[in-house]
C-alpha cells in the first residue's frame, strides 16, 4: 500500500512538468520548484526539530552560508555550482557544529531563543561585510549552455526551459535528502535523537552524550539548508542578505513540518504540498484586486497553524488514515450493487 503510494507519488513528481512545458505555462513549474525546496528544507528541519526535539529557529543562517559560499566560489573563482554546493554544505556543517556546541548547554525555549540570537547577529554581518557584497550582495552572471547536460552540470538553466531545469534539479536534491534522512531515521543515530527528545536524562543514563548528538542533528539540518541555499542562489541569480536570511526560510519549512506531522519522515513533504501552493493560488486569484499583496495567504497559514496546534499538534499524518481508508474500502465492497 505504502509502496504503491510512493511509486505513484514519484511518477507524478517526475511527469508533472511535462504537460506544463508542452502547454508553455512555466509558472506552475516554479510553484513545483518552491514546493520541492520547502519540502526538502522541512525534511532537513525535522532532524533537529522533530527527532532531536530542539526548536531551531534559525536554520536560514546555514541556507545563507550555502548560498553565499557557492556564489562566491562561482563569481570569484569560476568554480562550478555543484562543487560550490559541496563546499557550501561542508562550510555550513563546520560552522554549525562550532556554533551549536556551546548552545546545547541551553534547553527548551532558551535554546530556541539562542538560535534566533545567532540569526540576529548574522544579519548585520551579512549587510555590512564588503567582501560578500554587503547589502547589495552578489550577482550570479548567467552563462548560456549549448546542451542540457552542460546546463545541468553547471546548474544554470536559462530561457524557456529554466523553470523545468530547476524543477528537476530540486527534485534530485529533494530525493537525495529524503533518501538520506530515511537512512538516518532507521539508524542508531535516529534512535539516539529520539531518545534525547523523549527523555534527555534517561538517554544520558544509558550513555548517550546528549550534547554531542544535538550538535550532530543540527549539523545535518544545516547541511540540508546549505544545499537548498545553493540551489536557490543559482535559481535567483543573486544572493543578498535580506533574501537568503529571510525568516520565511525557517517559518515555511517549520510550518510544513507541523502541518504534515512533526517527527515523521513524510510529514514536511505533505505539509509543503498543501501549504506552498496556497500562497501561489491566492496571488493568482486575488490578481490585482484590492486585497492583492495584502498577505491574505499568510493569514490563512496563521489560521492553519493555530488550528493544527490547538486540535492536532501531531499533524495530519498522525490522523488514523489507514483505518479510515480501510473502512471506506470495506463499505464500497459491501455496498449493494
Amino acid at each position, binding site marked *: 500500500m505504502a509502496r504503491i503510494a510512493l511509486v505513484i507519488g514519484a511518477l507524478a513528481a517526475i511527469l508533472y512538468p511535462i504537460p506544463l512545458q508542452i502547454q508553455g505555462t512555466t509558472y506552475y513549474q516554479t510553484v513545483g520548484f518552491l514546493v520541492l525546496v520547502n519540502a526538502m528544507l522541512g525534511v532537513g528541519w525535522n532532524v533537529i526539530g522533530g527527532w532531536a526535539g530542539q526548536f531551531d529557529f534559525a536554520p536560514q543562517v546555514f541556507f545563507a552560508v550555502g548560498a553565499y559560499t557557492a556564489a562566491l566560489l562561482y563569481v570569484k573563482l569560476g568554480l562550478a555550482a555543484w562543487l560550490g554546493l559541496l563546499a557550501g554544505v561542508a562550510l555550513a556543517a563546520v560552522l554549525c557544529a562550532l556554533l551549536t556546541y556551546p548552545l546545547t548547554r541551553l534547553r527548551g525555549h532558551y535554546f530556541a531563543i539562542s538560535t534566533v540570537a545567532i540569526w540576529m547577529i548574522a544579519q548585520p554581518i551579512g549587510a555590512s561585510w564588503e567582501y560578500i557584497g554587503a547589502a547589495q550582495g552578489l550577482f550570479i552572471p548567467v552563462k548560456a549552455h549549448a546542451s542540457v547536460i552542460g546546463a545541468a552540470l553547471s546548474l544554470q538553466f536559462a530561457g524557456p526551459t529554466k523553470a523545468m531545469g530547476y524543477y528537476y534539479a530540486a527534485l534530485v536534491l529533494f530525493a537525495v535528502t529524503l533518501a538520506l534522512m530515511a537512512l538516518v531515521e532507521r539508524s542508531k543515530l535516529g534512535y539516539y535523537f529520539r531518545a534525547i527528545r523523549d527523555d534527555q536524562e534517561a538517554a544520558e543514563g544509558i550513555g548517550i552524550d546528549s550534547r554531542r548528538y544535538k550538535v550532530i542533528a543540527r549539523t545535518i539540518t544545516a547541511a540540508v539548508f546549505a544545499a537548498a541555499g545553493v540551489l536557490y542562489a543559482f535559481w535567483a541569480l543573486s544572493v543578498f542578505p535580506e533574501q537568503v536570511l529571510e525568516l520565511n526560510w525557517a517559518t515555511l519549512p517549520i510550518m510544513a513540518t507541523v502541518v504534515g506531522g512533526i517527527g515523521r519522515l513524510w510529514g514536511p513533504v505533505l505539509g509543503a504540498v498543501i501549504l506552498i501552493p496556497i500562497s501561489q493560488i491566492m496571488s493568482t486569484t486575488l490578481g490585482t484586486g484590492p486585497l492583492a499583496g495584502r498577505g*491574505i495567504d499568510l493569514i490563512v497559514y496563521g489560521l492553519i497553524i493555530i488550528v493544527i496546534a490547538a486540535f492536532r499538534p501531531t499533524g495530519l499524518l498522525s490522523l488514523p488514515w489507514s483505518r479510515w481508508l480501510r473502512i471506506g474500502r470495506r463499505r464500497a465492497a459491501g455496498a449493494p450493487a
Partner: protein
Amino acid sequence: MTELAQAVVNGLQMGFLYALVAVGLTIIWGLMEMINFAHGEFLMLGMFGGWWLSARFGLDPLLAIVPIAVVMYAFGMLVYQQLMRRVQGGDPFTQIFATIGLLFLLQNAVVAVFTSDYRFVNEGLLVRLGGAKVQLVGLTFAMPLLLAAGLALLIFLALYLLIERTEFGLALQATSEDRDAARLVGIRPQRMFAMAWGLGAALVAIAGAILVNFFSVYPQVGLQFTVMAYAIVALGGFGSVLGTLFAALLVGVIQSVTVVYLPPAFKDAFVFASYLLIGLFRPQGLFGRF
C-alpha cells in the same frame, strides 16, 4: 568621554521603555511559564492603535494608552481562553507553534487592513516637544524621551506594586509557584493565567503606544522587539520584575554605546551576543532568584 556618558544616559532612558516592552513577557513567560512568540505583535498592535487613534481622531498617543490598554487586556485574555488554554498542558513545542500561527495571523491581518507602509505619528505632546532639550551636568536630555522614560517608569512601578503588594499579585505568584496548592487555597489557576495574559498584552501594548512617538510603525515591526524582550527577560532572571528593569536598562546602554563605536546595523547584535554569553555562563540570568 562626554560622548560615552551621553550614550549611557540616552541608553538608560531607552532602557525604561524597553523595560515596559519586556515586562509583559516577564509575566507570561517568566512567571507563568508559557511561551509567546507573538509578543512583538502585541506591541505592534499597540503601536498601530496609537497611530490610528492619532491619525483618525487626533487623539494624543499618550492619552490613547487608556483605551489601548483596555482593549489589549481583553484581547490577551481572549487569546489565552480560546487558544493557549488548549495547548498549555501539551508539548512546549505546541505553544511555540500556536503563537507563531498567532504571529502570522496578527501581522498579516494588519497588512490586510493598513498595508505594509511605514506610518508616523505627527501629532501629540511628544511630537510638539520635538527638539526641546534640557542641559544637566554637561549632558543633554531630549524632552520627549525624558518624559516617555518617566512615564514608563511610573507604569513599571505601579506594576511592581501590583505584583508584589496586592492580593492579585500574590495570587499570581502563588499560581506560578504551585498550581495545585493555589487551587487548594481558593485561587482559580485558569483565571489567573487569563489575567496574566491580559496584563502582559496590555503592558506591551502600552509600551507600543509610547514607542510609536519615536519609531515608525509597520506590520513587521514586532519580531525584533520579541527577540529583544526574550533577551531582556532571560538576562533579568525569569519572573523577576525588578531584574527585568535592570536588564532592560543594561540592554538600552549596550545598544546606545555600540552605536557610538560600530555601524548602526550592529546595535542589536551586541544585545544578543550578551544574551548568548550570559545564557551560557549564568543561565539563571543576572538577577535571577534561583
